[in-house]
């Protein structure tokens, strides 16, 4: 049902054939997977990973000094 609706919408909108629809749904599935993947991550881990550039491990260097 949903497939048919999207199919007819896309067909009319951009004249996509079944090949194009296959491609579209391939991406849609992939994107959905990535979303689930990303939202399943723990906030603690995300915060730690996001801050990685801030610690370069340099000793007494101006690489950490602001310009």
């Amino acid at each position, binding site marked *: 049902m949903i497939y048919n609706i999207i199919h007819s919408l896309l067909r009319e909108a951009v004249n*996509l054939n079944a090949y194009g629809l296959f491609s579209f749904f391939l991406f849609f599935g992939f994107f959905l997977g990535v979303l689930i993947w990303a939202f*399943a991550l723990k906030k603690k881990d995300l915060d730690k990973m996001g801050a*990685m*550039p801030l610690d*370069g491990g*340099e000793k*007494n260097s101006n690489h950490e000094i602001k310009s």
Partner: protein
Amino acid sequence: MNTNIETFKYDNRIVRAFAIATVVWGIVGMLVGLLAAVQLFFPDANLNLQFITFGRIRPLHTNAVIFAFVGNGMFMGIYYSLQRLCKARMFSDWLSWFNFWGWQTIIVAAAVTLPLGLTTSKEYAELEWPIKIAITIVWVAFAVNLFGTIVKRREKHMYVAIWFYIATVVTVAVLHITNSMTMPAGWFKSYSMYAGVQDALVQWWYGHNAVAFFLTTPYLGLMYYFLPKAANRPIFSYRLSIIHFWALVFLYIWAGPHHLLYSALPDWAQSLGMVFSLMLIAPSWGGMLNGLLTLRGAWDKVRSDPVLKFMVAAITAYGMATLEGPLLSIKTVNSLSHYTDWTIAHVHVGAMGWNGFLTFSMLYYLFPRLYNTKLWSTKLANYHFWIGMLGIVFYVVPIYIAGVTEGLMWKQFNKDGFLQYPNFLETILQVVPMFRLRAIGGTLYLAGAFMMAYNLYRTAKAGQFEPDTEAQAAALEKPPVVAGKSSWHRMVEGKPLFFTVLATVSILVGGLVEIVPMFLVQANVPTIGSVHPYTPLEVLGRDIYIREGCLGCHSQMIRPFRSETERYGEYSKAGESVYDHPFLWGSERKGPDLAREGGKYPAAWHYNHMDDPRSTSPGSIMPRYSWLLTQKMETDTLPSHLAALRRIGVPYPAGYENGPAQKDLQAQADKIVADLKLGSVKADSDKEIIALIAYLQRLGTDIKTTPVTTAAK
């Protein structure tokens, strides 16, 4: 907890080397661009020298800014950030320096061969096959060094910037190898293995993704490293960066066909290109917002810190370019914008704003740190920012106006149903003032780059270079696997090989789905019985057409619009290009389309036009090609050229190149000389102009003389 703290050193020498190369090649590339821009309103600026004529230096400019300026900037940023994100020195200093000197040698080779006219003609892939092999070797060295460093890292997690670097390394390798499939016909001459519509699809799959994976993904990785570093705060949303990465690498590879809308490419491929281009807005803007929101609470710093100032402008330009790109991929918008200067304006928002400004910000960030001092003049860097911004505005605004003007004038009909501007020259002369303004914009931008070079030089003089930076980190004792229900992505990120395979599959899917059917399904390339291979003289003429970069200004693809068929003739069919190794459809019109040029004018008109375009077309901005009238055509190489073409499928009879071809060549040349005499032009049959006239007179005539097979349909 691991208490085994190790002390090691980061290599700054290689970062400095790439930084200096970035500045030097950036200025060179922009200077060449300025020279090309000036020739568009003052054609004699080429000093009547073939080596610095627009058609030859346009690819020199694009290659210099993409691969020399941005390429060196990319290596600079990666070599700096990768070591620090992995908490490890580069895997091999020898490979680092091989990468550096190999890349500079390739750039010098490009700077020599392109002005000499040694080119494949495929945009951003113009370099001939020995240089292509060198690129492959240097790229492999870079890849080994990158993966070696990742393997020996002291940090479990691979930060998002590294994912972008991995995607870049893998995809550029796939693109470069696929699009470089050529048949050598000498040391510096080759023919694309693919022909016509197939060559076009592979080329623009490559061309679009060269933008995506050379100018975008590595720079996004650099943004994800240098922006938090400069703002001294973590990235706004790491979750968003995961979605940004995967969606972008999966989607980008599909979008190439949007460069071929309304061309002879099958409709299904055009639609795929358009739809996936539109979807690209989402991840691109996700990345842009992630960057800008990183600065929340730190906008006060943007006012004073030139590094952040350049970064904010760069990320904004990225957002603008990645919104505009998908909009230009909508077929109706593209029907107006394609072949016009609108595209040039679009790419310069990306190149000058995104790549240029992000590179400048990295240079301003790195020099004080590499030389253990402060930036010599923050004030001068701020001036650079504003003059650079003015440069971009003065560059792109006139060219946007020029692009829209061209598109509208080409399509305009009068009330009687005839073209309002049937003479193409009228439409170009209308926008010449915009070309002048564009050159002023380019000059301002270049002036800013000189200011930066001076500022960085004074910074280096004031400080003391730190060849190595000592660092400490705990050793990695176990393989970087993190267990747990919700840590699948963390596990994947911890395994570089598995991660690389996943990223490779993501980029391959789109490429395969589009390219494989084009080669396997016969219906995608309908043949036309009357289309036959080029004669030997026409092959030589085509080689000259390629050498002079004629396709930089003249397309050979008439789109199926009434405004185009009225102006140029029957629209172009896929079957007409089946012997075109490489395809020469072009992407830009500074002169009229030439797909149906054959027989339009007498031979003498072409002769006089090449000698002095303004003698036949008053006001023309085309350069003079007077050297074609005096230079002898190279017939010694004809056998190897014909043999190479036969090897890739052009049906020349066996042995044709050893005797019969030369006889045919002479007979056709004599006929053209006779035609020229009718126009009171006396010419020798062995001059290059004869071959070029033969080629131009052939263009589009295959289906002019015989009814088109598709017409019955």
